[in-house]
């Protein structure tokens, strides 16, 4: 009984001594290890920030766009999106399984005064009437207009039309509404010169979601110049856009992984003369190879754990408290109107485990291997080297 009580206590006390000694060794080269800690934390921070940001956007897109139209039907002329005749609505409605078909009126307006692009949308039920608008937070910010203010819009004939802002859409919805300008059908047609009987595209709802693909095929057969875009394709778009294999994500992730590889390789490539001498002295004073390895294991763990935890927590603060302030110059690009959104913190243990496996494990291994090599050679030879 006493044996069972004493053994764990001895083990803990031994580990305590090892950690204390490790801290002593680390403090002896304070500058070098502080620099290592900063670089390590920075890599974990960058890697985690990218993972947190992309996962949160993908998750939010999948939840928010779950209610997007089931099928969008667009007409293509010479490979470009063209206006759709409204008479197609009746033909599509005739397809078995189709519930409703609605013509969507929407388009882009470039504001030459504020150099911003707006997305003009005609809602099915626009309650503010002709001559009025409801705008997203980004439009209000870029055009410096609040509720009751007036926005001048140049129509297709070059005449300036004055429209009054009746409502500014809530700031909580900026991820979908920042650049939206909700407008009446009459104003939309007057501004863009879209004739009656034409719409931008069609939104089709289907009674049985399992029939979406079949109905999309029937639409293609009925209108060979049309292309249907299904809701699942819309949802998959965001999965692909923020996939680690594409675009900026691949660039940042590969930069992080390569820097970490160089960093770990440098560590694994060999010990400095001072470190070798230390191991030689430890061996000469009676330390076992396993003790030296344990000491180096704790050195790796102390450095890895502190850097990993600090990097992950800082990344969380960066993405969900500062709205990814460091990424915003990249995301803004040439956009004048940029949405100010707060992402819902969707994080899971899998992401954190991925960062852990990519950083802590290789670093710890890189610390132990050269120490094991040095500890296996003759202490005298190690000290003289």
């Amino acid at each position, binding site marked *: 009984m006493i044996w069972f009580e004493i053994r764990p206590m001895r083990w803990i006390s031994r580990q305590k001594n090892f950690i204390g000694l490790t801290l002593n060794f680390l403090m002896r080269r304070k500058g070098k290890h502080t620099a290592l800690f900063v670089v390590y934390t920075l890599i974990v921070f960058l890697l985690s920030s990218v993972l947190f940001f992309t996962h949160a956007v993908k998750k939010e897109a999948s939840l928010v766009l779950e209610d997007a139209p089931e099928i969008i039907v667009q007409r293509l002329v010479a490979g470009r999106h063209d206006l759709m005749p409204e008479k197609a609505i009746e033909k599509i409605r005739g397809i078995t399984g189709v519930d409703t078909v609605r013509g969507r009126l929407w388009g882009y307006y470039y504001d030459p005064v504020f150099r911003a692009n707006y997305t003009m949308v005609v809602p099915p039920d626009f309650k503010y009437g002709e001559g009025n608008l409801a705008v997203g937070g980004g439009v209000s910010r870029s055009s410096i207009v609040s509720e009751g203010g007036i926005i001048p819009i140049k129509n297709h004939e070059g005449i300036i039309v004055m429209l009054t802002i009746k409502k500014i859409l809530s700031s909580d919805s900026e991820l979908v509404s920042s650049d939206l300008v909700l407008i009446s059908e009459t104003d939309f047609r007057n501004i863009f010169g879209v004739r009656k009987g034409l719409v931008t595209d069609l939104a089709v709802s289907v009674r049985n979601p399992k029939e979406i693909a079949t109905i999309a095929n029937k639409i293609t057969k009925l209108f060979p*110049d049309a292309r249907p875009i299904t809701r699942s394709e819309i949802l998959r778009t965001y999965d692909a856009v923020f996939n680690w294999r594409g675009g900026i994500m691949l660039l940042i992730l590969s930069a992080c992984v390569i820097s970490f590889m160089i960093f770990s390789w440098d560590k694994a490539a060999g010990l400095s003369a001072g470190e070798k001498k230390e191991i030689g002295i430890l061996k000469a004073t009676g330390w076992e190879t396993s003790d030296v390895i344990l000491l180096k294991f704790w050195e790796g763990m102390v450095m890895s754990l502190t850097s990993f935890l600090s990097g992950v927590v800082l990344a969380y603060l960066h993405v969900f408290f500062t709205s990814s302030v460091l990424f915003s110059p990249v995301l803004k690009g040439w956009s004048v109107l940029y949405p100010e959104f707060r992402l819902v913190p969707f994080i899971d243990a899998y992401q954190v485990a991925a960062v852990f496996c990519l950083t802590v494990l290789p670093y710890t291994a890189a610390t132990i291997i050269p120490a094991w090599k040095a500890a296996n050679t003759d202490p005298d030879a190690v000290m003289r080297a």
Partner: protein
Amino acid sequence: MHDKKFRVFMGCLLLNLSFFVLMFVHAAYSRNELSPALAEKSAMVKEYGLTDLCLFTDARYTRHPSMADLNTPFQDYPLSFEHFPSGSLIPPPPHLVSRGLSNDLVRDPAHALD
């Protein structure tokens, strides 16, 4: 001496660990707190028939990536290069890439030139 350093280190590690755990607690709490905002965005998508998130506003094909077409890289003239910064950040949507080589080519002869 070792004991003091050990205690300081363990104190820092525990502080770091508690921040780490707090991060998950905060995430769970925020998901609850922000669920009305999420519902509002969903309602907007349903009411106005929206199809995309407003992440980039400089180019039409990055404002609405799911609605982009195969002419995107040639939007000004057949040999023009893609020039919006956001265009280099995101790849084309999967349905455009896969269908562009099958259905779209068959459906629309104009794509055969791409």
